[in-house]
């Protein structure tokens, strides 16, 4: 049994990986809260309305005793867990709207979400889903929205950062796991955002209050006298705050993406023979090896990822550095309801184990559970553009998945030529012969197919046990 380290913050329960199942135990502190949720069938209703991941109670006496818990829940197991710093702008925006919609849904039923962690949302078939049922709590009239500040830091501020600076939020988010703080974003926002009433009200004003109270040590005073309860923040105000945020977030636009591909274009822009040949190779690879869980490195607009799904793959994770490609992929997965998860990925600096004790959020390799890899027109971006030695690169590919397709792009290819033209040829070992030698040392080369006139070749490998 393995405790999932990211769940340590919540005192009302913990999450475990037990016999390949995701189990959530309810602690003594969380019992009363859980019973109230259970008695009101709120979990079932949330699942029915597509807000919450499939969750059901299990009755395992041995486990209950072992975990010292009266209630155990099992969650649907995700093929791949993603984090907000790996999402595209549209993914984070949809996740934010999902959180607010769920909060509205719960409030109408007399419940609420006690926090607003973006890590509590995962993507299934291109749709955001909430995963932490112990974040639900009975709504108490007058109690303020405790997650407001967290919502701003983890959802709203990263979006505002990109709107304001036209720079992706991902790298900042990865360096600051709790999101972007109000006092940080307040310094970055451009004038038009600063005068926006929603931004002013939700970020700038609380930031001013925060500064003021710190200066005057008011928060200490309040904590000492925290027994004075007064129901001040009524339900209508709660709804108003959430709906105003939802309206604002629904209307914001990603400043980095051109508008012409606003609607996913069914027409294929690729028509050359080599592209069809590549498709045929991928199709055969998936069908022949009965691959179920695929990673598509450099997924572009997700065309090959979709091809994998059509030919029998159950889940594809598409990784790309380019945000326009990512948004196209996400739109594809969303509109076509594909089990395809596109994520932001800098292959030369992939997500590592970070957070508390350096394992709160898992790295890329730690999360890898793929049986097939596709790396088409990808290898040269690392070997040539990032100076990664061929040997290490091939070893890395094999660490990701035991079976795969790697396209080798030779030096006489036009793209590589441009790369080398600027850099100078500092790669004497970069040639097909070397590539083949290293790959053959670590794996069985199943097949080699030429795609293109420049000598590009797709190698199919099977890792040696």
């Amino acid at each position: 049994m393995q405790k999932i380290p990211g769940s340590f913050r919540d005192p009302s329960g913990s999450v475990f990986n037990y016999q390949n199942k995701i189990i959530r135990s309810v602690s003594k502190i969380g019992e009363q809260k859980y019973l109230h949720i259970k008695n009101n069938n709120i979990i079932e209703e949330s699942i029915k309305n597509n807000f919450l991941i499939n969750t059901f109670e299990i009755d395992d006496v041995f486990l209950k005793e072992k975990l010292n818990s009266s209630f155990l829940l099992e969650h649907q197991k995700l093929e791949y867990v993603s984090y907000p710093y790996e999402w595209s702008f549209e993914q984070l925006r949809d996740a934010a709207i999902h959180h607010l919609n769920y909060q509205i849904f719960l409030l109408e039923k007399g419940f609420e979400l006690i926090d607003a962690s973006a890590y509590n949302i995962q993507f299934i078939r291109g749709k955001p889903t909430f995963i932490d049922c112990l974040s639900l709590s009975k709504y108490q009239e007058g109690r303020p929205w405790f997650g407001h500040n967290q919502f701003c830091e983890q959802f709203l501020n990263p979006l505002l950062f990109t709107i304001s600076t036209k720079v992706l939020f991902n790298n900042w988010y990865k360096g600051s796991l709790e999101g972007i703080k109000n006092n940080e974003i307040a310094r970055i926002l451009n004038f038009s955002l600063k005068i926006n009433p929603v931004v002013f009200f939700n970020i700038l004003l609380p930031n001013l209050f925060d500064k003021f109270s710190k200066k005057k040590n008011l928060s200490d005073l309040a904590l000492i006298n925290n027994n004075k309860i007064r129901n001040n923040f009524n339900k209508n105000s709660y709804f108003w705050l959430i709906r105003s945020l939802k309206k604002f977030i629904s209307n914001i636009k990603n400043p980095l993406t051109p508008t012409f591909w606003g609607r996913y274009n069914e027409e294929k822009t690729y028509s050359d023979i080599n592209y069809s040949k590549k498709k045929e190779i991928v199709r055969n690879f998936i069908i022949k090896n009965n691959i179920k869980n695929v990673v598509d490195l450099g997924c572009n607009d997700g065309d090959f990822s979709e091809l994998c799904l059509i030919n029998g793959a159950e889940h594809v994770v598409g990784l790309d550095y380019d945000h326009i490609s990512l948004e196209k992929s996400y739109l594809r997965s969303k509109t076509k309801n594909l089990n395809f998860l596109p994520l932001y990925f800098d292959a030369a600096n992939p997500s590592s184990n970070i957070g508390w004790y350096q394992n709160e959020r898992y790295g890329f390799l730690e999360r890898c559970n793929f049986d097939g890899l596709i790396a088409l027109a990808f290898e040269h971006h690392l070997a040539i553009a990032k100076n990664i030695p061929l040997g290490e690169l091939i070893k890395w590919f094999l660490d990701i998945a035991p079976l795969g397709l790697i396209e080798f792009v030779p030096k006489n290819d036009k793209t590589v030529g441009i790369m080398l033209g600027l850099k100078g040829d500092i790669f004497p070992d970069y040639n097909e012969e070397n590539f083949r030698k290293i790959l053959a040392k670590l794996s069985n080369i199943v097949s080699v197919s030429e795609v293109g006139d420049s000598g590009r070749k797709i190698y199919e490998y099977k890792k040696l046990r």
Partner: protein
Amino acid sequence: MFKYSILFYTLILFILFPSKSFAYLDPGTGSMLLQALIGLMATLFTTFYIFLNKIKLFFKKIYYKIFKKK
């Protein structure tokens, strides 16, 4: 003037912070103050609205009295 503003915010904090929330995250003082302000404004608006209705009712009553007399 500053003393008054301190008094005002202190009061809000006194009013606002619940005794037992079992919240494991720090809600943020600024956000809590904002919501206190929204709450206060909502209360003020409601009071004002009720007061306005009372005035309206008062004049309506007078109007009907005159109308009936006619």
